[in-house]
């Protein structure tokens, strides 16, 4: 979230799209209802009418996988009706910049497409710079090649008729949402968007979020109270795990994972250190090398020296152009290229797409370790449906883990609040915390390396690995301190202006990432977390102060929010170039005299109107402004509607490109696709029920199982009538990849769509069930049906739109 949960109450209009907030983020909904009490409009756009819809002002049904068309129509509406927050768009976004003359967009393809590689050469996706390297700007926004005009041109095609025909949303409903949300372009109004997996689980997932970011920038809704783009993240500490890099393509703090061609630290830093010659751009990522060196010092301690590039060569490197997402890993596993596998706190036999392929892949492993609270479909794959245990050679280890209440540590919520939690109970039996398990395994590996030697020994034996407490047990506080960072030697920092000297002692925790150095005098496991301890070593994550000095719900003394306890990021954009808040009733920040008052400001510099020292508000961007034109994406700088890998149409109604051109399509014999195939005529989406957790370890909890006992498919009464199905009857659901059984839940909450003149039925199934338990039904995972394909930026699978058939069991 750019903002935080409590801040939802400050909004004037909340668009819940790509999220079932009431069911999957029940606590968040408390704040949404507070906003409603204040008179805010709450809108739910979703293929299904859910418990969220029931509590919103209204629900607008939309066909799965057509969100960009819906949002593209909104961009057009905002521009056509001049609802933009004019000053904000001119000064705080790249709307005024001039796009490269060779950039082009034709019939669904941007300039530079390589059809063979399914990827783009992005060299023309740039904006013009003057001789000093500063972006050329036309603040009248009239230059035909300025971002604003090019945006207008791009979305000209997204007419009400076209969008309605693609999405299945009536024109009246489109207008209702566009009008209501567009009204938040007034400087003293804020609209926010809550999304979750309903947006990320698409082959266009990242671009859906980009489309909304454009809307938020046009309406001046970023960096303000009650605004922002708010990803509601899951209970499994999704926020924390991405912050700390449980992904193949990043290092902690979203630093880039190096690839093979970047064989020295200098090359790596050169590539990723942001450059700007604009005196009004803070260009925060010019500090990139400080974060990488401090990270390497945290990894390898005294062994990391300037002479050995701080151990940079010990970091694993990605092969150039190769990806290592879960889907790629499973594809390699199925191809027999992977020997051993750790399923750490996961149940991929249920949760990963195309489960048949996943389970066949597991059979090709030599060994697998599953660290989990319960035995599950993954650890027991060798005795699953249709598997002959005698034919499986994989050796499986199941290590019992402790649940979140049985261990201390930090938990990061979606609003970036990192909260320290204490252990409430001891883990049962032989169960251990993940930290202990990891520590013991690594201890054993290091002992083996010491005794027997082995390849790549340096990163393993040089690793700083002293995370035990005085009793010899794993100590999460020690890990947290290492993540926060410390001075590796006595360091005197002299203030260039005042000449004042600040003395920092070796071993003291660093209070801010602004203190990190490139010379190895600081170590920091994750620069974003610097300041989670103060310099005296007090754990700010454990703070529980309930004061709210601004009255806006920021609660600065409750836990620690990265970065630097900032509660709303890009907050300088809440003020005009003179530093006065756009919305005087919600003073998030104000420039008073010579400083910012309110939230922790996004940097100390004066507001933009100060031509000498003033800075643009979006300090993490090289040019300091919000990106309406976003060349960082792999499939285009403006979001474009493409159909899902499997949909009901043979042709994209808006261009000649049916599928997102940059999508990776796996080619194994089990990666079958049936687009617009009459054997699989219904659009299906998947989701989690309130009552169950992800891949379903809550199926062991009798009360939750009592409340949601069996897998089900929600189908409209119209489709049930057509198929002759009765409510509560058992049915078979099939895609070209597999088949599952479940109970038909016939409902008036789902309605067929009219898409391109045809009636399209939408169905939905929860993802929480599997064959292992409950044994009475043994309904298997819905992911037998889903395709292994995903967003080319993130490789988040397309669980939310694919095609099925439904018949009596």
């Amino acid at each position, binding site marked *: 979230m750019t903002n935080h949960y409590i801040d939802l109450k400050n909004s004037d209009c909340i668009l819940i799209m790509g999220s079932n907030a*009431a*069911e999957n983020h*029940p*606590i968040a*909904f*408390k704040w949404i*209802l507070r906003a409603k009490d204040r008179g805010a409009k709450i809108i739910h756009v979703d293929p299904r*009418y859910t*418990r*969220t*819809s*029931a*509590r919103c002002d209204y629900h607008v049904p939309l066909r799965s996988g057509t969100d960009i068309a819906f949002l593209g129509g909104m961009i057009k509406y905002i521009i056509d009706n001049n609802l933009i927050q004019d000053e904000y768009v001119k000064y705080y976004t790249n709307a005024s910049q001039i796009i490269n003359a060779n950039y082009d967009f034709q019939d669904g393809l941007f300039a530079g497409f390589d059809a063979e590689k399914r990827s783009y050469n992005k060299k023309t996706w740039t904006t013009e710079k003057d001789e000093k390297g500063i972006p050329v700007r036309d603040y009248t926004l009239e230059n035909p090649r300025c971002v604003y005009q090019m945006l207008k041109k791009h979305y000209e095609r997204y007419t009400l008729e076209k969008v309605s025909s693609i999405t299945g949303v009536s024109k009246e409903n489109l207008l209702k949402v566009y009008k209501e949300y567009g009204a938040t372009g007034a400087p003293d109004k804020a609209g926010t968007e809550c999304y979750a997996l309903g947006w990320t689980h698409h082959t266009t997932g990242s671009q859906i979020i980009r489309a909304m970011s454009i809307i938020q920038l046009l309406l001046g809704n970023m960096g303000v109270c009650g605004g922002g783009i708010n990803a509601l993240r899951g209970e499994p500490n999704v926020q924390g795990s991405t912050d700390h890099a449980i992904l193949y393509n990043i290092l902690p703090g979203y630093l880039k994972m190096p690839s093979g061609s970047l064989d020295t630290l200098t090359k790596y830093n050169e590539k990723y250190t942001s450059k700007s010659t604009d005196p009004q751009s803070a260009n925060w990522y010019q500090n990139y090398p400080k974060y990488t060196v401090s990270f390497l010092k945290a990894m390898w301690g005294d062994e990391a020296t300037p002479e050995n590039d701080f151990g940079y060569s010990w970091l694993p490197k990605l092969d150039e152009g190769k990806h290592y997402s879960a889907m790629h890993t499973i594809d390699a596993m199925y191809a027999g290229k992977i020997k051993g596998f750790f399923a750490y706190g996961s149940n991929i036999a249920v949760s990963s797409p195309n489960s048949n392929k996943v389970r066949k892949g597991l059979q090709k492993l030599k060994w697998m370790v599953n660290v989990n609270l319960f035995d599950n479909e993954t650890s027991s794959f060798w005795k699953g449906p249709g598997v002959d245990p005698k034919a499986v050679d994989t050796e499986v280890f199941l290590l019992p883990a402790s649940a979140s209440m049985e261990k201390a540590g930090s938990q990061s919520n979606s609003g970036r609040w990192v909260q320290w939690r204490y252990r409430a109970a001891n883990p049962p039996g032989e169960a251990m915390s993940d930290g202990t398990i990891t520590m013991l395994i690594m201890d054993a590996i290091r002992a083996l390396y010491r005794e027997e030697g082995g390849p790549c020994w340096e990163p393993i034996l040089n690793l700083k690995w002293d995370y035990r407490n005085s009793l010899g047990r794993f100590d999460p506080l020690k890990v947290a301190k290492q993540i926060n960072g410390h001075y590796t030697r006595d360091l005197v920092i002299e203030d260039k202006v005042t000449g004042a000297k600040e003395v920092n002692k070796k071993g003291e925790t660093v209070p801010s990432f602004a203190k990190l150095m490139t010379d190895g005098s600081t170590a920091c496991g994750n620069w974003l977390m610097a300041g989670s301890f103060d310099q005296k070593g007090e754990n700010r994550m454990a703070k529980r102060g309930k004061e709210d000095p601004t009255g806006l719900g920021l609660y600065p003394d409750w836990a620690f929010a990265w970065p630097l306890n900032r509660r709303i990021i890009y907050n300088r954009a809440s003020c005009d170039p003179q530093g006065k808040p756009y919305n005087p009733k919600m003073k998030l920040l104000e420039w008073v005299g010579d400083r910012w008052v309110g939230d922790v400001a996004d940097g100390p510099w004066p507001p933009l109107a100060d031509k000498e020292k003033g800075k643009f508000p979006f300090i993490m961007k090289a040019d300091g402004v919000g990106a309406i034109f976003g060349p960082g994406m792999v499939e285009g700088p403006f979001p474009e509607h493409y159909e899902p890998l499997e949909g009901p149409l043979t042709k994209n109604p808006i261009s000649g490109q049916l599928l997102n051109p940059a999508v990776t399509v796996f080619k194994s014999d089990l990666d079958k696709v049936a687009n617009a195939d009459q054997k699989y005529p219904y659009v299906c989406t998947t989701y989690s029920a*309130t*009552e169950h957790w992800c891949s379903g370890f809550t199926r062991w909890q*009798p*009360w*939750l*199982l*009592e*409340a*949601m*006992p*069996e*897998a*089900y498919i929600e189908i409209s009464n119209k489709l049930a009538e057509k198929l002759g199905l009765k*409510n*509560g*009857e058992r049915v078979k659901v099939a895609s070209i990849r597999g088949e599952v059984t479940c*109970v*038909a*839940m*016939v*409902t*008036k*909450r789902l309605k067929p769509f009219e898409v391109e003149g045809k009636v399209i039925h939408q169905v939905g199934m929860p993802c929480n069930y599997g064959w292992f338990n409950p044994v*009475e039904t043994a309904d298997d995972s819905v992911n037998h049906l889903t395709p292994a394909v995903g967003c080319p930026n993130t490789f988040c699978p397309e669980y939310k739109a694919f095609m099925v058939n439904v018949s009596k069991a």
Partner: protein
Amino acid sequence: MSQELIKLIDLSRCTACRGCQIACKQWNELPASRTKNTGSYQNPPDLQWNTWTLIRFQEHEDQSGNVKWLFRKDGCMHCTDAGCVKVCPTEALYHTEFGNVSLNVDKCIGCKACMYACPFGVPKFNAATNKIYKCDLCYTRLQGNQLPACVLSCPTGALQIGPKDIMLTKAYKRAKALGGDASVYGDKFVDGTHVVYVLPEKADVYDHLPQDPKIPLQIIVWKEFLKPAGLMVAGAVVAGAFLHYITHGPKMPEEEITSEGGDKS
């Protein structure tokens, strides 16, 4: 002196997350039943001896064809003029100092009279123990100045508890703010209930919600005229049970819980 309390259920804030339903089971240590999906989110299908509160899910189509999904937390209404208390021959059911109706299970003889006396269908019988069970508004928690488990679990503020007058004021204020068909349900019958709803829709739209809840006439007759005689009958039952005990030995509740409430955990 403790105050009379009201639990306010504001259905316009209920997201049907069922936290209350589960929290009730946890605090009261009620075993789960092995249920089936019958084509509804509502499960268990009804209140049971081991399900004292339940979210009812109802799809409602209004006259113009708009579909609404209605949620209602069902459970004991804790009546002032409580049929169950009136009819109970052993005073197992009784009013506490907070106005709620509590149950002393040890005193229950399983006569089931309360089940017929309750206009809301709340008390449920467990054949295995030969006793009835129902919500007591977490009486022991109230005594300890704690919120009832359901109220504590509610994430949105749909459930609140507080002094009667304050809660009723809140309820009417909320109904007024909601406008339209919203109303307050509970204070106008059986001398007022200690559970009060704010209903966003007309009361007659909700399934299983009596429009004019009354204690059945025969119960009033029982209470006013026949109870002394009834107690004599109960005395005879106790005497009979004692005779049974000395002739056949103690009859223990069955260990195996019946299919209605089989605990497989």
